[in-house]
């Protein structure tokens, strides 16, 4: 699998570390932490995910990947992703 890093370009997936669903947002209050830490959707289809380009530019990315066939629809820097 190849992942197009917005800075480095097209790279082998082995350079990246997978984290998971990019949707959960860290709660501002003490409520909602259980969901934030533990509850995850498992969609069949496009999913926004956090990947770390650990052996590249060391940026956290939001990768939109189709979980059915690994088609990658888009990659942006996580710090620039609209959340």
């Amino acid at each position, binding site marked *: 699998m*190849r992942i197009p890093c917005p800075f480095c370009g097209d790279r082998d997936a082995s350079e990246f570390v997978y984290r998971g669903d990019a949707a959960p947002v860290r709660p501002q209050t003490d409520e909602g*932490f259980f969901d*934030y830490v533990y509850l995850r959707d498992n969609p069949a289809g496009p999913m926004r995910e956090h990947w*770390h380009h650990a052996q590249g530019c*060391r940026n*956290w990315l939001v990768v939109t990947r189709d979980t059915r066939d690994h*088609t990658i629809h888009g990659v942006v*820097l996580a710090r620039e992703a609209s959340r």
Partner: protein
Amino acid sequence: MNRLATGGLVERDKPLRFSFDGRAMTGLTGDTLASALVANGVALVGRSFKYHRPRGLLTAGPEEPNGLVTLGQGAAAEPNTRATVVPLCEGLTATSQNRWPNLRLDVLAVNQLAAPLLGAGFYYKTFMWPSKAWEKLYEPAIRRAAGLGALSGQPDPDAYDRGHAFCDLLVIGGGPCGLAAALAGARAGLRVILADGDLRLGGGLLSERRRVDGLAGADWAEQAVAELAGLKAKVLTRTTVFGVYDGSEYGALEELTSGGARQRLWKIVARRCVLASGAIERPLVFTGNDRPGVMMAGAVQTYLNRFAAVAGRRVTVATSTDSGWSVALDLLAAGVEVAAVVEARAAAPSAAAQAARAAGVQVLTSAHVTKARGAQLSGVEVAQAGGAVQRVACDVLAMSGGWSPAIGLGANLGARPAWSDAIQGFLIQSPPPGLAAAGAAAGRFDLAEALRDGDQAGRAAIEGLGLRAPDTPAPSAEPQDSAVASPWRTPQKAAKAFIDFQHDVTVADVDLATREGFVSVEHLKRYTTLGMATDQGKTSQLNGHAALAAATGKAIAEVGTILSRPPWLPVAIGAFAGHHRGRHFRPERRTASHDWAAAQGARFVDAGQWKRAQWFARPGESDWLTTVNREVTATRAGVGVCDVSTLGKIEVFGPDAGALLDRLYINTFSTLAVGKVRYGVMLREDGFVLDDGSVTRFGEDHFYVTTTTLNAAKVMQHIDFARQVLWPELDVQACSATEQWATYAVAGPNARALIQRVSLDIDLANAAFPPQAAAKVRWLGAPGRLVRMSFSGELAYEISVPARLGEAFVRALFEAGQGLGVTPYGTEALGVMRIEKGHPAGAELNGRTTAHDLGLGKMMSTKKDFIGRVMAGRPGLTDPDRPRLVGLKALAPNDRLRAGSHLLTLGAEARTENDQGYVTSAAWSPMLGASIALALLRRGPERYGEHIRLHDPVRGPEVLAEACAPTFFDPAGERVRG
């Protein structure tokens, strides 16, 4: 010799000597091992997997199920090598497999008599009971009887190389279609890679007597390859593409003949791919169809035309395809006697039939071979439409049951192939992005069609990449008929009619599986093991599906076919490992003073990828414990030096650096004064401890973080996540500095004296440089960093110098320390001293402990938010009944406490529900003269003084210990202030 005097692509003036089963033979340059065996009249090449039936070569290509041999001897032996793809070379030694004592007399052939017991699913049925007999009796017996070649059991002496390639167009298969596609692409300026498993390109052109653009097929192929080379296309011969992966990545294996490595594993990224992998001929299914002498018609033709090797003296051709007739005509043209052509269809192709009859060949239509006669083929029985059966004497049967496009790679990513009535085979329905099948792989079997199709596929790739295809014409050939009859229908009650030759699966097995309810193709495969041998069913899959269709009364289209996963051909694990084996299994990290440590007698231990000095044995010390005790005692009495360069080091900069660290650690760092260091603990968001370490402030907007060795990368990633994802609004910059600094812990009562001798240009007096002080220093003009902190409980400093100078610095320390009793100590002594002081480390920071568990709960700030704060307050994590950190001291002086022991109260039965916790770290304390340990004990801090049983049923008897505070040595902490 069965070699023709003329013709073929072999060099008669370049003979090659080789041996098969110890028999010396001669072949020719250009031969494969298989063709040389045919030319030497060898019909029997192996014994079958389950029944040990004698087998001969079935095919002439990579799909070969029978002709598996072991090449070479000793450690370099390569078992299960297909004789059909091994180029013959001088001195080659090949041995047949799966027979004992020899190929002709195989004792285990009696398995044939037990065939009724070894039918479909025998593995699941026969050996169910008693279960104890499995390991001792059944499995060894099966392993001995069933099987292919044996591994040498010795380390693989070969090297394996790795390659990466990128191209616009990858063409898989170097036959006429693939060459046409590659030519089109290369002429348009595309970066083209053409990969083919064969040593020589041309595919079917080398086997058939056909002409392309007015040239003999092989000559045209040679010209095409020369043109491709001129166009800078990369032509990889003996290279099999074995897998298609996500993101247009392809795996390929190149067989190397020179250069020191056996194989090269290629990872190819291709924007477009033409799958021109051709088609595989299907066997006919009848009683005894596995007898030596029964071969694929296309194989007989390849041996004849490419290798000038004749498989027999009198050949019968049994066919349901037009291509079978061209084999008969080629044999006649070469002067080989053809006894009969058995045509399954009602009408034979008229021109070919006429020519055959004219040559005296018996032509039988609406006819089927029902039985092969003779252990070595002596003739066949043929049934005609009316039911009449006649015998035909022959020593070779050339059979053709149609062609299956070789589309396995196209289905690698999960697309199920679809049945085509037009070609009576399966085709790729929805290929992976960027890939298109062409030629025979797309069901276009005739040469003229395949050339045109390849050219068009090349052009489609060019246009798909937004370029213009040149106006050059496609290569052309005279069209020929390539009709195929519907595939073979199950003959009723055919005994020993084989479908999967390599796994010995017969029609009867498929019938049995069907009766037992295994009616999906995927279940049939697993229950009968059809298609699961090393050949992955290349010749057997479709016949298996046809048999299933017949047994269930369905059409093949309805039955469907299985998915195909990589690898398309067997790939040695060594090829995947490449350079990464033995001590290069993973890259090794060495600290700056590694060589110095080795010279001091260090024994190294793995800490992640790092090599760390575990202890420094001195001459005369035969026991590691003696060494470690000496290192601890010398450090606590004088001064010791430990290389702690492997700790993770992270620079954190920016106006908001303090704010970020406050959110990362349970304690507060924004208030840390410049020039001070503080211990800190990080949690994961779920409330458990992630890591611990120190944070030093070197400037208003400059912090220096250390992590444990094993968590360095994880913490760096965690910090990046916090500043890039969680709080991108903070103005913080961070980078690793682990590799910049070589860091040494200098500990012991003489630590200050030692450091003063190495001129760091700093006042180390307690008043000027108290505990927790930090400063930038200079050593010989180079920048350095000094912090006063202690892991050992002694007066201690950590000094960092640029890694380039690490070895020079450690030498300077030891030179300066002569007379102070300076001693190097390793991770074992480090571990003993931190256990004596009750500091948690890796064994305690195991991902399942909270700050509270480790006695660090009071560090958790209540004045700020930090990662893990909320979840650490969960009832489950604040339960007072949780196991918490305590010390344990052995009651009897000679008892040894062991890490991993479980804790029990006195008198409690050793059962899970009575478990009170476990020992995390244990050591012999030379200071206390006792075995001590750190443990996680339920309500531990409330139980100091209680006697606890350490239960360790695997390694030894129970031991009694007393629970105590985890700080065993200098509990008041006087020594660090020294």
